[in-house]
């Protein structure tokens, strides 16, 4: 290699590669997100307070609105708890177990993300509805139906959050615990679970956020007797009570934002914990 092949004509001339300049890029992105996301949300919040704070309060404390919010929170909590247990279990089986068809099973986990929500609801009705193959009399228009639909659409969150953490988990710790005489359950509870907890919680928070707002998979299953908040809002819009719909929407939005910031907080903590 000749030492003179690379002459450096402009030692300090490097400029960051640019597409129309950093400020222009930043401006376009800010404008795009503002028009697409910020402006509609701002319109929603403004509108909910249009007729004053008292009217806002009246709308969200109407018995039907409270019942809808309550139902939403209850079913969301139930499915989150089930997801935390079953999601962790499925992730465990997919990472630690070996059997034929595991690869296919692993890809199918994402199906609820890919399948349109209205189809998700319809598939469950086709199987469990009163005329279905495994027909249940109390599926459509019951809490069981709503919870099943929510479990379907939120299935991937905990599984996909736990899998990578479980993959990286050092098995030496488990073996050390075992060799010191800890039983399988003790090892799981004292060694594995504390390491997985941040991932489980992150997945659970996403599942909760999704369940709180879910609409498509519930519209055919919930009917009038199981009116969750999203369906309540939809009916208020159809009935012309825009202020009421906007007020309950703002409450849902608030719940979502609290969860969103919660996720980021958990995320930051777990990243720190990893290192």
């Amino acid at each position: 290699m000749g030492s003179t092949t690379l002459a450096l004509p402009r030692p300090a001339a490097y400029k960051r590669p640019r597409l129309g300049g950093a400020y222009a890029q930043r401006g376009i992105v800010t404008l795009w997100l503002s028009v697409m996301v910020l402006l509609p949300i701002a319109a929603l919040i403004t509108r909910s307070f249009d007729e004053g704070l008292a009217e806002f309060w009246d709308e969200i404390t109407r018995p039907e609105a409270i019942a809808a919010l309550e139902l939403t929170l209850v079913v969301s909590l139930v499915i989150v708890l089930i997801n935390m247990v079953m999601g962790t279990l499925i992730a465990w089986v997919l990472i630690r177990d070996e059997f034929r068809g595991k690869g296919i099973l692993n890809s199918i986990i994402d199906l609820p993300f890919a399948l349109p929500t209205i189809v998700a609801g319809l598939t469950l009705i086709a199987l469990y509805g009163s005329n279905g193959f495994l027909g249940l009399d109390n599926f459509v228009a019951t809490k069981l139906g709503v919870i099943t639909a929510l479990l379907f659409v939120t299935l991937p969150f905990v599984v996909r959050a736990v899998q990578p953490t479980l993959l990286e988990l050092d098995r030496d710790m488990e073996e050390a615990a075992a060799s010191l005489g800890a039983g399988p359950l003790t090892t799981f509870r004292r060694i594995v679970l504390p390491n997985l907890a941040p991932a489980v919680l992150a997945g659970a928070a996403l599942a909760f956020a999704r369940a709180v707002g879910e609409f498509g998979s519930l519209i055919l299953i919930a009917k009038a007797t199981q009116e969750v908040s999203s369906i309540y809002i939809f009916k208020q819009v159809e009935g012309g009570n825009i202020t009421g719909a906007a007020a309950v929407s703002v409450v849902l939005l608030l719940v979502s934002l609290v969860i969103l910031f919660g996720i980021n907080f958990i995320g930051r903590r777990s990243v720190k914990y990893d290192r």
Partner: protein
Amino acid sequence: MTANAASLGQGRASKWGLRTVALVYLGLLLILPVIGIFFEAISYGIGTAIDAVTTPEAQHAFFLTIVMCLIAVPLNTIFGVLTALVLVRQKFRGKAFLNALIDLPFAISPVVIGLALLLLYGPRDSWLGEWFFENGIQIIFSPIGMAIATTFVSLPFVVREVEPVLREIGTDQEQAASTLGASGWQTFWRITLPAIRWGVTYGVVLATARALGEFGAVSVVSSNVAGETETVPLFVARQYELLGDHVAGAYSASIVLAILALLTLASMNLIRRRDKVAATPTTIAIAPQVTEPTDEEDPR
């Protein structure tokens, strides 16, 4: 790992137990229902099923759904790549705020998104809609509003898939290209884009799947007129509620959507095999920022 028999699930009995519980749960919740819908559609007779999705109304619904995707996905791809570039490569005040805005479409109920758009673009009592309406452009209750809703709900995917890849590739090659005299556009087309192509593809696949199937936001801003403002998911819901023979239409249109979803899964798998960074399991979990890509794990 036979020495590790004491770990949960490694013992023979508990291993089979856990596997059985997982399989039964997934079978009842996921696999049987999806198989069931195929049988349900066929149970009306294959002829009926085919007739039901080839009526002019159904054809228009498919046409409109494709149009929605063709508007939302390219928009979200172009702006998504640009947004990812800005978020990864630039430091500025308010970046955290923009970051939070990108997550909103995942965090908000589709119905709330629809309502928000109604209040911004509606023909009456809205911020911008009245002006458009007076100038002869109706946004809400027309395909324009439905396209905006579809774009809104599928906005985060490309950004969130491209970000980790951009962080991973760094700027060394771009700097080299630039030093050798390449312009900003040349660097982008020849260096950056090829490096992030699988991340972009993955984001496009996810955004398309979401755009195809969006129901809640679109149903609020649509006038729900068959053959005019009805996408396939809206068609499915209406056919189902019409009862009688129409239910066959709901199921057979659902099958088309389910097949598209399975194709989505297949392409996700293909891409995942091609590029691990673009498609680690967490990134699809719509879990922004939950797990930063770890530095230790470098598949290249």
